[in-house]
């Protein structure tokens, strides 16, 4: 292989890896979108509105 081909190989590898990375990110994006729609249906399917987010506090009942 000549100098020029090695050059193309080097830049090609970099380009392919970055492209693969972008593809992985795109796949993650699709998964996130699917999950969001799932959660949306979960929210709609519940009749009662979801409980408020503040912590469930167990009261202590000190003895008389």
């Amino acid at each position, binding site marked *: 292989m000549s100098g020029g081909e090695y050059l193309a190989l080097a830049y090609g590898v970099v380009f392919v890896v970055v492209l693969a990375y972008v593809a992985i990110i795109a796949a993650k994006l699709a998964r996130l979108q699917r999950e969001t729609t799932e959660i949306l249906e979960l929210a709609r399917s519940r009749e009662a509105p979801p409980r408020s987010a503040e*912590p*469930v*506090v*167990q009261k*202590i009942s*000190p*003895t008389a």
Partner: protein
Amino acid sequence: MIRARGLEKRYGRRRALAPVDVDLPRDGVLVVTGPNGSGKTTLLRLLVGLAAPTRGSLDVGVDRSRLGFLAHEPLVYRELTALENLDLFGRLYRVAERRERTGMLLERFGLWEARNERVAAYSRGMAQRLALCRTLLHEPDLLVLDEPYAALDEQGAALLDRELDGLRGLRTIVVSTHEPRRLERLATARLALA
């Protein structure tokens, strides 16, 4: 002595302890009950500082040197004898007159005869009694006991009852247990974890 607001603990996605509030005055006795997996052990590990809370605030009015913790595990070396274990922890906790205190505790919990035997040769109940000696060795101000009666036989349980009665009003105690009736006369506060 202990003040906690909205104390919660998660390990990544798993929630080990639902938010809980605790207010325990000095020399109070808090009995924590709840089914397995409700977070009793997690709460106690948070109180002694073995785990950091994920959310909420916690203030324990005593530092490690005035704190005694009895866990599910005896927290002693299997290959060392009872005396060697208590000697090691005595040094680490800077206990004054270490030998006398160790001897007295081993005597009180019926382990004096077995003092030179390796813990590996101990039964589960004897190991639990040794763990109690280790927990009380440095006369801690705050005593945190995780299901102390779990492995004790009748005689061991009676020894523990006598010990706790002796400390009532002198020490702050937090106990998690499945037999709250046994601590009915001692408890000044109760916390039921769902």
